[in-house]
């Protein structure tokens, strides 16, 4: 465990361990809904200025104009107890912003890929990303009203997933369902940790 450059004991306060979990999937798959349903904070939003890391040089002083491109991230917090706090981060759009994904995935314990059976292909880029990176992930199929119901084994096949990757149904609007998904992910990450195979795209 890396305690960074500060000694938490000096604060006279116990500092918990932060666990980062990503909630990925296509547009409209229910990422922000799930983050909001299961978090104590409701979805919070923060912005990253794109040029900062896209260029990575210190000569940007004063050039951040109103048009500076930013990418928004929705996230939430679940305080488990004094020792552990979970942070859930919804990933931004899949086709752009890969560098933001790299930052989010760095040190993440695992990811939930939300799938919508009406647009199953929308989650492929997320699945590809976490497979390539070696981040443990599970697929949670958000059950939308009016969508044709599929058998989980069929979905596993359709997604061309490694049989070890858990696939489960969920309702992103429901807190209990979100908790079940997170528990499934934590269990999966415990038995399939992001190990040596985890790529480190942005040290």
């Amino acid at each position, binding site marked *: *465990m*890396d*305690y*960074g*450059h*500060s*000694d*938490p004991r*000096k*604060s*006279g*306060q116990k*500092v*918990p*361990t*932060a*666990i*980062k979990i990503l909630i990925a999937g296509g547009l409209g798959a229910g990422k922000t809904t799930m983050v909001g349903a299961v978090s*104590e*904070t*409701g979805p*919070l*939003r*923060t912005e*990253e*200025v794109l040029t*900062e890391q896209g260029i990575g040089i*210190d000569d940007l*002083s004063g050039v*951040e104009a109103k048009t500076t491109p930013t990418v928004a*991230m929705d*996230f939430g*917090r*679940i305080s*488990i*107890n004094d*020792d*552990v*706090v*979970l*942070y859930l*981060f919804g990933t931004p759009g899949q086709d752009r912003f890969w560098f933001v994904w790299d*930052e*989010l995935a*760095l*040190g993440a*314990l695992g990811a939930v890929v939300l799938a919508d059976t009406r647009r199953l292909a929308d989650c492929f880029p997320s699945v590809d990303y976490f497979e390539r990176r070696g981040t443990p992930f599970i697929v949670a199929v958000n059950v939308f009203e009016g969508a044709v119901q599929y058998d989980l084994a069929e979905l596993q096949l359709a997604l061309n997933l490694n049989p070890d990757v858990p696939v489960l149904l969920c309702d992103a609007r429901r807190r209990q369902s979100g*908790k079940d998904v*997170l*528990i499934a992910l*934590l*269990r999966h*990450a*415990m038995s399939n*940790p*992001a*190990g*040596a195979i*985890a790529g*480190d795209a942005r040290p």
Partner: protein
Amino acid sequence: MSAPEELPEDRWVDEHAGPVVRPYAMTRGRTRPVTGRFDLVSLVTATHLLPTRDLGLGPEHLAIVRLCHRPLSVAELAAYLDLPLGTIRVMLGDLLERGLVLVREPAAAGALPHISIIEAAIDGLRAL
């Protein structure tokens, strides 16, 4: 809970025009913190030192210190203060350098938290 109760009162914000002081002015044009890594989920806690304005700190620095009476992540600070992450990181570097905050970085990339931590998280989620 939507936000800590103690949101800074002296935030220089005009709701219609956006922040009166642009983020790069708060950091005096700096885009990198003087020290520190500051992952999104690095947890920041205020020390018992009392910040004063003569340390060269602005109101946003002091707002961070006030919010961090309990551990808050870098991402939460950015959200509650409505500032870009890069700006928060620069200001955290200033505070860390002056010993006003402590920072606990998350587990190094690729390192799994101790199994007991994950088990505690699972148990805790069940109990919530």
